[in-house]
């Protein structure tokens, strides 16, 4: 019976260890596997109402590009969305969108209502392509270099700081590199 009183303590320590490991995992960090690898082979049709789909070839045109994984059901995507509108308005780098596990009508409504920052969009309705890209949380953002390789991956909400301090400088650096 006395031991029973220690059960909460034991459970708590298991929890604390998991939380500590969780901190170390940093869900925003890049899984090294995909970095510097060519983008996966895929071919997606455009989001409903749009004509330019997204495929591997579109990311291997000798141009640096950004790929943003988004969904209408994703609250954080809504938060970072204005930043993408800025990126599109600035016109320094093409931004493509992978619409992850989304209802076509909702996705189209979402883009109509808040604005469409994407040059090309791909509707990944069942999440198959997402698996190849290693998507585990929406939103995610990838930086693709001139040779069509993934150079950087950001998981979670894009913030002004991360965009200005990490993403855009990397894009400029990659753009300056020779083919």
């Amino acid at each position, binding site marked *: 019976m006395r031991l029973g009183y*220690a059960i909460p303590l034991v459970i708590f320590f298991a*929890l604390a260890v998991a939380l500590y490991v969780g901190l170390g995992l940093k869900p925003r960090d890049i899984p090294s596997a995909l970095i510097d690898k060519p983008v996966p082979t895929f071919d997606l049709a455009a989001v409903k109402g749009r004509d330019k789909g997204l495929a591997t070839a579109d990311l291997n045109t000798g141009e640096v590009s950004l790929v943003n994984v988004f969904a209408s059901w994703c609250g954080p995507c809504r938060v970072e969305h204005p930043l993408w509108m800025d990126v599109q308005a600035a016109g320094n780098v093409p931004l493509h969108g992978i619409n992850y596990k989304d209802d076509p009508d909702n996705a189209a409504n979402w883009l*109509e209502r808040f604005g469409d920052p994407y040059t090309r969009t791909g509707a990944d309705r069942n999440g198959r392509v997402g698996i190849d890209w290693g998507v585990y949380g929406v939103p995610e953002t990838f930086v693709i270099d001139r040779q069509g390789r993934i150079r950087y991956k950001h998981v979670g909400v894009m913030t002004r700081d991360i965009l200005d301090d990490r993403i855009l400088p990397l894009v400029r650096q990659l753009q300056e590199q020779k083919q």
Partner: protein
Amino acid sequence: MIAEVGHFALVLALVLAIVQSTLPIIGAHRNIAPWIAVARPAAFGQFTFIAISFAALTYAFIVSDFSVATVARNSHSAKPLIYKISGVWGNHEGSMLLWIMILSLFGAAVALFGDNLPPRLRARVLSIQGMIGIGFLLFVLLTSNPFERLANPPIDGNGLNPLLQDFGLAVHPPFLYLGYVGFSMAFSFAIAALLEGRVDPAWARWVRPWTLAAWCFLTIGIALGSWWAYYELGWGGWWFWDPVENASFMPWLLGTALLHSAIVVEKRDTLKAWTILLAILTFSLSLLGTFIVRSGVLTSVHAFATDPERGVFILAFLAFTVGGSLTLFAWRGPSLKGGGLFAPISREGALVFNNLLLTTACATVLLGTLYPLFLDALTGEKVSVGPPFFNSTFVPLMVPLLVAVAIGPMMAWKRGDLAGAIGRMKFGFFAAAAVAFVTWYQTTDGPVLAVFGMAVGVWLVAGSVIEWAGRIKLFSLDPAASWRRLRGLPRAAHGMALAHIGVGLVVMGITGVQSWTVENARVMRPGETISIGKYDLTFKNAGTIQGPNYSALRGIFDVSIEGDHVTTMTPETRSYPTSTMTTTEAAIRPTIVGDLYAVIGEPDGKGGYATRFYVKPLVHWIWFGAFIMVVGGLISLSDRRHRVGAPARRAATKTLAEASA
């Protein structure tokens, strides 16, 4: 200069917190009266300095002092005054400062109102409170200093996220924190009781009002947050099972359990160790919530500026506080002897049932919230747990609880009469069945579960009314005698009945909005009409208007029912130039049977606008029910036995009350 005063005051508060958390507790242990006496002035002093610090930050926000980093990042000179003020806690640093201020406010309240507490218990409670204060003051000073200066102040600030520039959200965090932090009182009392090795009915009577107050605040906070999500996010959703929502919901569930188990300690002198454990866990979950929001272990809409360094700090603090208190519990808990025995079918039994279900429900929510993290830690696999999980686990747990809530209060202490209680519920059963039938008849579509949900809601309301009417012997005595009984009934009894009725209303509201919401969306041009439910909406026109720090597209819709004009609705989409962000201001026409909800979106460039309409049946019952629950809680809080507190003084006041009556 003012910012430096704030920073300095915070350091002084830390020094006082260190004094408060050491001298009194040692004094209580060794029985040194002057050291025990330090507790009260230290608590007042700590609150005063933190309040000065908070005032300094507020001042920096009001005068838009952009040389302070927090202000520059989160405020803007063109913002309305109220949002400059609410901007103080609309960011990580400021919200932590508010957290601490509320913590010290509770400490000061114990010092002020704790006259009837034995001085040693009071000293211990304040010392524990001081220790929590040290942890959070260090956290703010070391990892999130709100008074940090910028070498090159910008001309204007970045502005507050427009989604947060809203009245509901301006007042949501303070209430939430009052709730979260309020549970620190129950925690401190629990630790003090473990140190003293004594838990008795008097202890429960001191703890209950603090818990009840914290619970009321937390209920308001959660309800405000949900209401805000409903009218501001433009989807008409009111609860998303987002990790941060869960973080506030878990302490609420356990706090509710604590509220009820403390009654058993107070009335029957049993369930002591369990109640202590609940008090520890409730506050631990508040701390865990803080950890989840600020560390970035889970991604959420609410995630503030996340920073792993802060995460490590909070986790270390969590391990110290929770680990320490649970170790103390494992060590001292077995010595807390239970008093009264009771049969399974009894008031105590019903409250134990309530506690079991609430804690299980809380564990389910905790599991669903942290499961992605566990899986990631163990296997590296990433998943997200969504509403389907919570709906299919949480709801089945709630149903038996809700059914039992109507019957529990009819049970006698020690040994209850279940058959008698069910007999008394005859009317409730018929009422529920009648409503179920009407619901079934009225709604051709919608899930079968909805009929059941409405019945459960009515059952609960009816049960609470029957129990309350039984107490005053309504209809079985003449009205005058019933009135006298009504006057004589403790306020806690009225409070309980009201709070339970509130729960019933919430259940009906949730059932209504989840089952029978209708939606209609399409691109509309001025002059066109759309119909939804019984309403016809004619799109008059759309135009641009200017607000203080935004410009808005406003659509005007004439609403009519069968040709009769009812109202005009003006939904807006606002864009904020400083943050290139747009927000939805839905137009809502609330009625008692349901809301009409209208949203206008982007123009399509060809004269049309994306529009969306919902009819949300009974949705306002959710918040009205929550309001009723809070009113019940407050009435119960005003009960004489809480105001009097110590049993020693109870007799004296009783005679006084009788004399004045």
